[in-house]
């Protein structure tokens, strides 16, 4: 029986969602680890794009910020920030975007802006950054988040970026380029949108239960008919993560 931390579980399951050749708009932290893991396993031709304007990065060390110099040295291309959002993301050249946030609601909408009222926030969060556009224009989006009730409310306090709005039909009517969130990877399992755009539990991680998932979700979580079980992190995946990608365990240590 292999031991692993919650961030390791999230990262490995996120990596498995990526396809070879995908062009991915990456954030630092777990998405960066997931992409680099995928590149070293099943997706060697993955192209990593960073909102700072770096295209095709090959970081030699673990990047500690979204603009880490290791992303630049040895990259394929560097362009300005306007260009990376306009020529790459808005133009439809990004296959996958990774998102996270303080709140993710039943229809995959994300809040990264405020808890409470906008003008008099209880908690002022960092704000959109690039996530408003990534959620709208990347062909598919994946969300990574610890599974906690406060993080999965019925409705977000503030809609920083669009999931399926109030229904898949509403997103379709908005004619956004991207297809919206395709999966939410949590430390309990995987949520995916049904025909209406509602997130339902489609997979459980080893030793996790439907009850745990329900108890940690802020709406009445529905369970897919064909609920799957994710494959446990393999020795090889864990070895790459621990020995090559984050040997100091900056992002991979447990306890979140």
């Amino acid at each position, binding site marked *: 029986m292999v031991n692993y931390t919650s961030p390791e579980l999230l990262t490995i399951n996120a990596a498995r969602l990526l396809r070879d050749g995908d062009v991915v708009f990456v954030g*630092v*932290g777990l998405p960066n680890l997931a992409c680099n893991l995928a590149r070293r396993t099943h997706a060697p031709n993955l192209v990593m794009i960073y*909102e*700072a*304007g*770096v295209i095709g990065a090959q970081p030699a060390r673990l990047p*500690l*910020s*979204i*603009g*880490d*110099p290791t*992303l*630049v*040295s*040895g990259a394929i291309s*560097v*362009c*300005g*920030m*306007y260009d990376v*959002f*306009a020529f790459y*993301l*808005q133009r439809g050249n990004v296959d996958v975007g990774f998102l996270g946030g303080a709140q993710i609601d039943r229809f995959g*909408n994300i809040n990264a*802006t405020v808890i409470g009222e*906008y*003008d*008099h*926030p209880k*908690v*002022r969060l*960092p*704000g*959109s*950054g*690039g*996530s*408003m*556009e990534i*959620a*709208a*224009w990347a062909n598919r989006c994946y969300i990574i988040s610890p599974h906690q009730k406060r993080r999965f409310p019925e409705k977000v306090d*503030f*809609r*920083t*970026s*669009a999931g399926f*709005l109030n229904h898949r039909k509403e*997103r379709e009517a*908005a*004619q*956004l*380029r991207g297809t919206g969130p395709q999966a939410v990877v949590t430390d309990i399992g995987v949520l995916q949108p049904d025909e209406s755009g509602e997130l339902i539990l489609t997979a459980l991680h080893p030793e996790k239960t439907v009850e745990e998932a329900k108890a940690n979700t802020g709406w009445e979580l529905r369970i897919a008919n064909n609920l799957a079980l994710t494959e446990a992190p393999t020795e090889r995946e864990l070895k790459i993560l621990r020995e090559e990608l984050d040997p100091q365990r900056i992002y991979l240590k447990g306890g979140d």
Partner: protein
Amino acid sequence: MSKIYPLSDAIAQFVKDGDLIYAAGFTHLIPFAAGHEIIRQKRKDLILARATPDLLYDQMVAAGCARKVIFSYMGNPGVGSLRIVRAEIEAGNLEWEEYSHFGMISRLQAGATGLPFMPMNPTAAGDLEKMNSNYRQIIDPYVGKPVVVVPALKPDVAIVHVQRCDQEGNSQIWGIIGEQKEAAFAADKVIITTEEIVDDSIIRSDPNRTIIPGFIVDAVCLVPYCAHPSYTQGYYDRDNSFYLEWDETSKSKESVRKYLAEWVYGVKDRHEYWEKLGEDTHERLKVTPRLSQVINYGSY
């Protein structure tokens, strides 16, 4: 008339109380030394605009320079919250105006290209657009679909740190080029801080590398290590431990006051600041070379 100024003179001459300042640089090349000089000169009521306020604006807000921030991501990059800006906003002491990254950068793009606004495709997220009346909708006159627009941002002063420029301010940057070009072209006044002032023959050996032409530049300031704790690609590394420490420092007003007293008010200029950092830090931030291949422009 020479454009070369000591940084303190450039700030004294070109940055006024109440100005809208854009200190450029997405993670890379953030002109910390210029911000510290603005703090030392006790500028007030500034409007501080940056996609990512970063520690620099946290420090400037802590020092009382600002009445408002304009931003699209208010975090300590790679670490977490930007505590002081956040606390001042939560306390209602600081005005703010907020965009997504693309909205913010589109505002600069419009300002830099002389357009009144810039269009963007809709994102359907909606809430930020409701809260910020600078977001407007217009209708695409070809197919009748809505398009979102943001108005031009035209800073009074852009401060841009570069790897090298000549005496006229013809400036070359490599690595992450963020919104440096857009900030410079959008602004009324442009202050260049630079790691090196080089002969114009070096600039002219590679014109495709020049991002900012000297004739839009008002002041050229030679300020090695200007960007610390941010970095300059090829010159020194990002001081990540400083970013981590700031997360601690910024937890209390007292420790921030101490920090400013020691590292901003307590030093004369960036040279003194850099010397004070000490040799261990210098050593830690050193970078081994990785050179570009030369290209041939041809002699015509």
